[in-house]
């Protein structure tokens, strides 16, 4: 499928954006330089919790090459507000969440290792670092509470005055009485304790920012590694108070991965923009990986107790969940919605569960803020559901696949007891296909063969569901969202017939420049190389909500479809005048407007030219030009779902786990570009396997980060995986015009329970926590040998 052809929906079109990336011509934020730019280096707290007694900047300010040294007091003096959390959660008793202040630079207290104490701006980064060493900060070290388990305990150190017992909210969802009734009549109860390990998102491009101030226009420009530049501008304008929106341009150029971590509005980009005016120079900051580990928002970090009530046949009667969610030291931009509305609302999984009750306590600790990371709440829900269902199956002696089948939701729409109304799906279809692709029936023979080689082989299932496209706006608003979650698009047809599509979505690896162009190419019947997708610049795109939560297809592309509908409608009017036919007789097909039943017609480009020449239609009735915009607000979430199967082997001598086979069968609804979609699945699986087997952010008892680099934080490598086998099933999503559901997070949601269920199968125990590192697995395997010897 080459660039000069029309690209139908469903074709694996090669990516338009690749040329610049494979030739080194990508333009990431750190690749940009502004004339006269200076470099920022942030002095960070070495303590998890401390009062700042004094900061003496005098010596640092005198160091060679220093342009400015700024602290939280300077920020406060300029009247700038703190960073915000944009989703209000109310506790069970109706009280609003208790959020502590979150200044971009600490004023009197630092609350985690890496917290921002001061910024040094100098001619070069090395000089800024040299000068930072001369900053004299006197700390009064305070007791720290890095451990989630004890943060709410009596006598624990208090991190924010506003949040007694370090508790941000105590929230609930569901029907407690109904769940209690279900347990009262249960034939069997399965219980599980889960720690959902804290992860560092680790996009390969570290965050970066360049702030610039034009004193003539009194306007700021901020280049930054953002997944949602418009939201960044809105927050910096409306809440931080940096500048009015019309005097603040935010540009997110090529962005090297995000996975959620680049949604948020951080201290560093805020400070770079503000400081640019203060020092009268463009100010550039590029995060080092070590800094990213310290202060990029982390993901997950839940402690959960789950109880499942079942009848004697394994039918689920009720589900009760208590989760404590770590927020870190401050509430990050969307932190509060992750363990609540993105988590508890998915606790029904793919199953018809009559009663669910979930309590979530959100807790401050002296650690980096925790916010959305690929999947955001939904991996935590799926992990809990898929682990407890698997455990229940084994306790009841039911095959895990059969157990799932007995409980599947089979009729749609299906209203769950936890807000969500699933609109479409066929869970048995994806399970059946996955079992077939995995040769589930042949597993016992493979296990026996592995045993002869001294390996423990296991197979694990994960039937995940997620809610994507986060919407409609009114619904999320009623749940506490501070913003609407629609999307915008503008389709500009140029006089010569080529097209620019402006979208409020943002691509940082997802391939929007191709998929979105493919959609337009197919719809307008013009070659894909005549379609350019523009995103990531608030001066070009009027507004948009950005890309996260697998929303860009279902919401962002739907907005494009809506704009395309308007373009087509107007073009038809123009064509009708030129062809001297009635508008109702104009058909548009394969890039051509024609009069029904005749051979008279016009190519799309001819109509486009006429729209601008405007000689052949009455401009009193039809405005010249061909450009249409649309805002699209979906009618429901979308519900991608599927079944992943992991087969693995454990070397009991070393505890090494080798994944030997991976099957992914996903239902994403309509797929525009299967090549790109499969790529999203692959990447998600790798991150999910990373969570299951490798990754963990760890703090010690004093709140020092123990896993501060790739020397200690294990990243998935090529060697850690087999080739993945990806299949698809399709049920169309009824709530958007394309029938799309979203694919970006599926792998990361599906993978962790598939791995741990497979390990549980291999090791014969349910007591396996993530990450299941070799040392941990070896200890479990040893215990198994000891147990077997005793039996």
């Amino acid at each position, binding site marked *: 499928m080459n660039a000069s052809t029309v690209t139908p929906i469903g074709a694996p079109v090669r990516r338009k954006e690749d040329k610049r990336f494979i030739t080194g011509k990508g333009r990431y934020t750190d690749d940009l330089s502004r004339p006269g730019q200076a470099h920022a280096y942030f002095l960070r707290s070495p303590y998890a919790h401390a009062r700042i007694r004094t900061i003496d900047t005098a010596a640092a300010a005198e160091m060679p090459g220093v342009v400015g040294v700024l602290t939280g007091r300077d920020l406060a003096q300029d009247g700038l507000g703190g960073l915000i959390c944009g989703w209000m959660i109310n506790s069970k008793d109706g009280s609003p969440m208790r959020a502590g202040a979150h200044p971009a630079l600490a004023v009197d207290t630092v609350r985690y290792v890496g917290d921002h104490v001061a910024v040094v701006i100098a001619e070069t980064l*090395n000089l800024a670092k040299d000068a930072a060493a001369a900053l004299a900060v006197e700390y009064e070290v305070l007791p720290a509470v890095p451990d989630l388990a004890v943060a709410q305990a009596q006598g624990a150190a208090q991190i924010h005055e506003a949040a007694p017992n370090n508790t941000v909210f105590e929230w609930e969802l569901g029907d407690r009485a109904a769940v209690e009734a279900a347990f009262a009549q249960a034939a069997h109860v399965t219980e599980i304790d889960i720690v959902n390990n804290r992860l560092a998102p680790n996009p390969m491009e570290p965050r970066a920012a360049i702030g610039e101030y034009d004193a003539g226009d009194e306007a700021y420009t901020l280049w930054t590694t953002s997944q949602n530049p418009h939201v960044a501008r809105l927050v910096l304008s409306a809440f931080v108070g940096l500048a009015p929106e019309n005097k603040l341009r935010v540009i997110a150029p090529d962005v090297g991965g995000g996975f959620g971590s680049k949604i948020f509005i951080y201290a560093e980009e805020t400070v770079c923009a503000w400081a640019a005016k203060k020092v009268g120079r463009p100010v550039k900051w590029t995060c080092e990986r070590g800094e990213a580990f310290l202060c990029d928002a982390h993901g997950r970090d839940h402690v959960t107790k789950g109880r499942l009530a079942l009848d004697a046949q394994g039918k689920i009667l009720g589900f009760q969940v208590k989760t404590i969610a770590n927020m870190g030291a401050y509430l990050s931009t969307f932190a509060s919605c992750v363990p609540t509305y993105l988590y508890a609302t998915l606790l029904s999984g793919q199953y018809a569960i009559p009663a669910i009750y979930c309590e979530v306590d959100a807790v401050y600790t002296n650690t980096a803020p925790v916010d959305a990371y690929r999947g955001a709440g939904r991996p935590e829900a799926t992990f809990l559901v898929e682990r407890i269902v698997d455990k229940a199956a084994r306790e009841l002696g039911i095959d895990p696949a059969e157990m799932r089948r007995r409980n599947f939701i089979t009729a749609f729409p299906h209203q769950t007891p936890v807000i969500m109304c699933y609109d479409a799906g066929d869970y048995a279809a994806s399970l059946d296909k996955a079992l077939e692709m995995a040769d589930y029936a042949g597993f016992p023979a493979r296990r026996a063969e592995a045993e002869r080689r001294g390996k423990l082989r296991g197979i694990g299932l994960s039937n995940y569901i997620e809610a994507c496209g986060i919407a409609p706006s009114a619904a999320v608003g009623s749940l506490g969202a501070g913003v609407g979650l629609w999307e915008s698009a503008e389709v500009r047809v140029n006089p010569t017939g080529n097209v620019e599509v402006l979208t409020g979505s943002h691509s940082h690896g997802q391939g929007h420049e191709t998929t979105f162009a493919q959609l337009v190419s197919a719809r307008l019947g013009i070659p894909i190389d005549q379609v350019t997708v523009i995103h990531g610049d608030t001066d070009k795109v009027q507004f948009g909500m950005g890309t996260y939560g697998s929303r860009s297809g279902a919401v962002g592309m739907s907005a494009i479809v809506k704009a395309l509908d308007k373009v087509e409608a107007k073009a038809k009017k123009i064509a009708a005048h030129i062809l001297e036919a009635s508008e109702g007789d104009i058909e548009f097909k394969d890039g051509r407007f024609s009069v029904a039943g005749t051979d008279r017609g016009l190519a799309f480009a001819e109509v486009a030219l006429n729209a601008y020449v405007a000689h052949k239609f009455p401009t009193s009735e039809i405005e010249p030009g061909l450009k249409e915009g649309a805002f699209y607000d979906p009618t429901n979430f979308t519900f991608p779902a599927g079944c992943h199967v992991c087969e693995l082997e454990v070397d009991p*001598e*070393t505890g090494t786990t080798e994944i030997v086979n991976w099957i992914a069968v996903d239902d994403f609804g309509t797929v525009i570009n299967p090549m790109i979609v499969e790529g999203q699945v692959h990447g998600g699986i790798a991150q999910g396997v990373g969570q299951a087997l*490798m990754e963990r952010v760890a703090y010690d008892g004093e709140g020092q980060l123990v896993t501060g680099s790739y020397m*200690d934080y294990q*990243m998935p490598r090529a060697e850690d995986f087999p080739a993945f086998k990806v299949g698809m099933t399709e049920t169309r999503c009824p709530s958007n015009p394309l029938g799309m559901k979203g694919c970006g997070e599926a792998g990361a949601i599906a993978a962790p329970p598939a791995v741990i269920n497979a390990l549980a199968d291999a090791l014969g125990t349910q007591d396996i926590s993530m990450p299941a590192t*070799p040392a941990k697995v*070896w200890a479990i395997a040893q215990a198994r040998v000891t147990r077997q010897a005793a039996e």
Partner: protein
Amino acid sequence: MYAFDYRRPSALDEVVSLLGGLEEPKLLAGGQTLLPTLKQRLAQPGTLVDLAGIPGLADIAAEGGGVRIGAMATHARVATSDVVRAAIPALAELAAVIGDPAVRNRGTIGGSVANNDPTADYPAACLALGAMIVTTARRIPADEFFAGLFETALGEDEVIVAIEFPRPELAAYRKFRNPASRYAMAGVFVARTGEGVRVAVTGAGQSGVFRWGAAEAALTDDFTAAALESVPLDASDLMSDLHGGADYRAQLVKVMAKRAVEAAAR
């Protein structure tokens, strides 16, 4: 990085005199450990003295049945050297699993041995093969060279010139990599010579590379993996960290030792 000066002398005696005359000099070989250390501002040398300009310092030659490897020979060169592969294939195999391909293209045997990182691979080969560390001042047997974590017998103005490895009858190296860093979490080099068996362990010891005497005795009697089954290893001398406790490392040492014996005997 802190600021420093840079020199690239072209003769060894010049290197030695620079080391004696400069403030806080530091030798730069491949730089694969040194530069990350400097980037984190964990060291502040006054001058880096680069050994890359010394002719012949990377030569590899057969010598007395064994091999003499110049200090500046990269891991990649050792891994692919016909001379090394003919004399001591286990040494070439060890070099081939250090770091990653790009690191192997720069990292050197001399740098690795002089740094004596407790998780480095070469120290195990030196100890197990009974290597001779040849310096600008003297010849130091490996048994006298490694002196604990990042400590060696090298004097302040002494430079490693080459390492001489005698040829063993049988040898093999097996390591379990730290899952995150890829350094050795337990690396065991087993070598059998006419004088007996030597077993050197890296990555696991609290004091760096060490010889595992009990295993040597057992294997001298019976060079089989089974002979190691009941050989004790005191876990209290082993490292314990995020990636695994001392017990786990003890287990890894034993498993890697067995696998090395099996590979050597193959």
